[in-house]
């Protein structure tokens, strides 16, 4: 591994002469740089997507996992009795911590976004809400539902799982898709570099023959090409990453109060991660070109 690293560093540090033995190419070089840049730009977005959906999945799973609500709908006269019954059940249910009857003010605050602040909560036949927290071990939601149905027929347990699970699953899937995209972008970059390296090698068949004839070793010949392509990939990917990061930074910000969606983007140390894209692209180009060069060289004596 150390040898490989040394070799890569030696290649990137370069040998001006080894560069000169291969004729310069203007147009294909620009194409390679452009493609590497475009790939890096896409990689930045795929990365932003998977990191943002990862955060989303974690937050939903975290924040919602530990709370649940019991909603009691009963005629005015029975409300207090059923609420008491529910509280009695909750206090004795293993895995439930701190059941708490929401006050009229709290319920009004919850409804305010929908109906305005002047809602006369006490005069409306609103259900009574009881909030509870799960302990580490959690509770058996099915068993609790059965007990509630038997002793307080107006009470419904909403453990949020019904709508939380698909959302968390979707966010997880989104993160996976982002990672798969990054992998595909890497492979596509390798394929693109291989194609253009093969084209360059074929176009320079005479150069390679002459070098081989005057006693150049395979690594020397390969190095001239490898250095070029790694350099181009590095340049292109650096530009693409920069533009991509600026574009992500300029995206409209997410609601800081922690609204429903987190913004697509990087947070804090997350901004470091895309900076790995250019060196990775250079590494991909290094290996792709090296493999292509050695494949071609072993076909000549």
């Amino acid at each position, binding site marked *: 591994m150390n040898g490989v690293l040394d070799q890569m560093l030696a290649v990137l540090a370069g040998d001006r002469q080894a560069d000169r033995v291969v004729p310069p190419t203007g147009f294909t070089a620009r194409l390679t740089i452009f493609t590497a840049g475009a790939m890096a730009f896409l990689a930045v977005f795929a990365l932003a997507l998977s990191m943002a959906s990862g955060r989303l999945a974690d937050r939903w799973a975290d924040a919602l996992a530990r709370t649940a609500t019991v909603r009691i709908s009963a005629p005015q006269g029975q409300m207090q009795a059923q609420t008491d019954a529910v509280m009695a059940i909750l206090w004795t249910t293993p895995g439930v911590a701190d059941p708490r009857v929401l006050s009229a003010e709290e319920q009004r605050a919850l409804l305010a976004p929908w109906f305005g602040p002047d809602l006369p909560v006490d005069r409306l036949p609103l259900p009574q809400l009881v909030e509870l927290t799960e302990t580490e071990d959690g509770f058996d939601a099915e068993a609790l539902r059965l007990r509630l149905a038997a002793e307080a027929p107006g009470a419904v347990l909403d453990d949020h799982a019904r709508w939380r699970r698909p959302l968390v699953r979707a966010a997880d899937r989104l993160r996976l898709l982002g990672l798969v995209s990054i992998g595909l972008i890497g492979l596509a970059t390798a394929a693109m570099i291989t194609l253009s390296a093969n084209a360059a090698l074929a176009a320079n068949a005479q150069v390679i023959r002459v070098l081989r004839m*005057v*006693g*150049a070793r*395979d690594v020397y010949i390969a190095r001239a090409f490898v250095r070029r392509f790694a350099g181009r990939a590095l340049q292109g990917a650096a530009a693409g990453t920069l533009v991509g990061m600026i574009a992500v930074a300029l995206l409209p910000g997410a609601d800081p109060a922690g609204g429903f969606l987190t913004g697509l983007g990087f947070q804090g140390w997350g901004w470091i991660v895309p900076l790995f894209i250019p060196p990775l692209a250079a590494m991909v180009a290094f290996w792709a070109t090296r493999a292509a060069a050695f494949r071609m060289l072993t076909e000549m*004596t």
Partner: protein
Amino acid sequence: MIELENVAHSYGGGDLLTEVGLTLAPGSFHFLTGPSGAGKTTLLRLCYGELIPSAGNVRLFGQDVRQMSRDDLARTRQRIGVVHQDCQFLNHLPLSENVALPLIVSGREAEADPANLRELLHWVGLSRQADALPPELSGGERQRAALARAVIMSPDVILADEPTGNVDWEMSLRLLQLLVELNKMGKAILIATHDLNLIRAAKAQVAARVLRIKDRRLLQAGANL
């Protein structure tokens, strides 16, 4: 330094060469003759490991070519100067860098004396063309450049395929002179040529042996030319 032992070669189809034995010792001077298509170029290519014999053994500096790695082969070629019949260059580099190419690729350029390069170019009459690109050169100029490139590393063996095919008699003698001087320094020389006058001129200066390919075999031609 180069030994061929009972070597045969075929490009597919029948054997082009069979039962070839040849030893190039330090300080030896050989000419290789034979009709066009007899296999002179093929024999030279066997001598620097571009071709692997279909039978028999080729040893370069004591190593069997079949056992040599690609890097071994590259290092061996740094000790064998070759002038090809069709001289190929790096067309984007000026002549002087092309001539110095063996030094460049072996990493010995830094320790080389630039005066040597100038002197060598002067000897082959290419001082004025030092900055020209190879496609701008005449056939004879290319041949002289190829010879200069073959000898710049001061190799132990020089294999030249028709090195004087495109140059006038005076320049032929000049190139021969260069090879003779190198031979006197102990280099082994093998020249494939049709030019009997060149062979005669060489024989006046060194003990050159003449080999001839006839009926797929390599024969020692007598003193009679």
